[in-house]
């Protein structure tokens, strides 16, 4: 059997992590190709329903990338995102999901290397966990 390759859905803020990911690409920094990126205008614009949707459709992990605290283009979107992620993880945990499949990271536009490292680290962590058990359940 081929080695399990985790699938990660990443919701990235346009002003920081998305640009950081772009920088990682243009700087030819190597990182695993397991991530599918969705660009948002701000981490504060992410309704947790879409994170849930990704997990329920079988994504092995969800990465949410926003500007460092204090750096949000819209002042406080990332602080609000942080609350929503805290709530989401609590709900997931209470309902029998693994909350550690959801990662929130502050990665700036200049941190291409940090973005690449984060993806590498997340892929390794998810490989250890194995596939999202939801993939095998059809009653979702």
């Amino acid at each position, binding site marked *: 059997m081929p080695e399990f390759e985790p699938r990660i859905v990443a919701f990235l803020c346009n002003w920081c992590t998305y640009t950081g990911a772009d920088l990682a690409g243009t700087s030819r920094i190597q990182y695993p190709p397991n991530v599918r990126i969705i660009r948002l205008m701000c981490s504060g614009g992410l309704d947790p329903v879409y994170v849930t949707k990704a997990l329920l459709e079988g994504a092995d992990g969800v990465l949410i990338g926003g500007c460092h605290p204090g750096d949000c283009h819209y002042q406080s979107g990332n602080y609000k995102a942080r609350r929503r992620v805290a*709530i989401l993880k609590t709900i997931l945990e209470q309902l029998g999901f693994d909350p550690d499949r959801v990662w929130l990271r502050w990665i700036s536009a200049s941190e291409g290397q940090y973005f690449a490292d984060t993806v590498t680290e997340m892929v390794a962590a998810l490989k250890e966990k194995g596939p999202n058990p939801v993939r095998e359940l059809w009653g979702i």
Partner: protein
Amino acid sequence: MAVNAVLEIEDNVLNTLNAFLRGLLERGVVDDLLVPQTTLAGDNVVQTLVHDVAHLSAMNPMAPVLPVNSATLVSKLTITGAPRKVGVVLRTCELRALVELVKLQQATLENVVLIGVDCLGTYEVTDYATLIADGIDPTAELLAQIKDGPPRPHDGYNFRAACQMCEYPTPDAPGVHAPDIHLGVLGTDGGVLVTVRDDLAEPLELTPASIPAGRKAVVEALVRERAAERDRRFAEFRARVTDVSGLLAQFSTCIRCHNCMIACPICYCRECIVRTTTFDHEPRQYFDWAERKSIIRMPVDTLIFHLTRLNHMSTSCVGCGMCESACPNDIPVATIFRAVGEKVQAIFDYVPGRSLEDELPLATFREDELTELGEK
């Protein structure tokens, strides 16, 4: 500040309460009264908005039945401002939901006199109707037990699950926004407790008195019993749902009628995302899923409905159990939402219905909180 007084019982507790409520209209303390009254058929007790004192003859603020959470009704009456002074008779779960709706900007309290009543527990609407059909007076039965408490349901019946685990039977409990007027019957004997905002004592001609001696012990015993039942149900739920298969088992019989959401006082959105086309897909998508997973449940998205609701409203869930009562398939929705809500609310030390000042967790943030999230 509040003033305590005792209403002498004339013939019985219910009539004493009714006379007091009638007095609010008669004395012009309020222009209208939102008060539960028995329907013409006699087998249900529903909220009525009454302007004319002559139409208060079927009042029953103590009836053990709760067809709707009246917070939604107060929202309708006040969302753009109540045009006249209105008194609203509410149980604690309705009062607490109303506090949340005010903060969600779905209700206003100007011109509103909040009248909280002790709750003796409520039956499902169908059970209440059956009891009536059998010639039983469910209200009198419970009022006969207020002195020593806790009030027990009729033999062979039970209160709604949410009531069995409700630790707020009285609206004067700590952790609940204080109503302007509170009518307390639990632990009283021969006189009903009335606590009013101090400026209301004079127009209502109330003489300050001390809280009936037996009340504290009776209320405490009831709350202890309820809290123990709550913990038992939460533990049971957590033992059942340790993984996603356990969760799926909970919702195996869900037909996605959305009744739970429609009955929920907190879910106020005119157009919930789950009722839009957001989650409709091109036919091709379903076939792709079927191919990828070999099999999918139809309709899709059962869990996402419940997870979305939890993400959006669990910070404000007051545990009224309207969701569970509305569920045609007896899914323990209230237990699930309360158990999850408890953990979510604890992150922010938030108690729904506690105060108008506590900010809604989703409407605010603190820079120095949750700092471990987002960092490596």
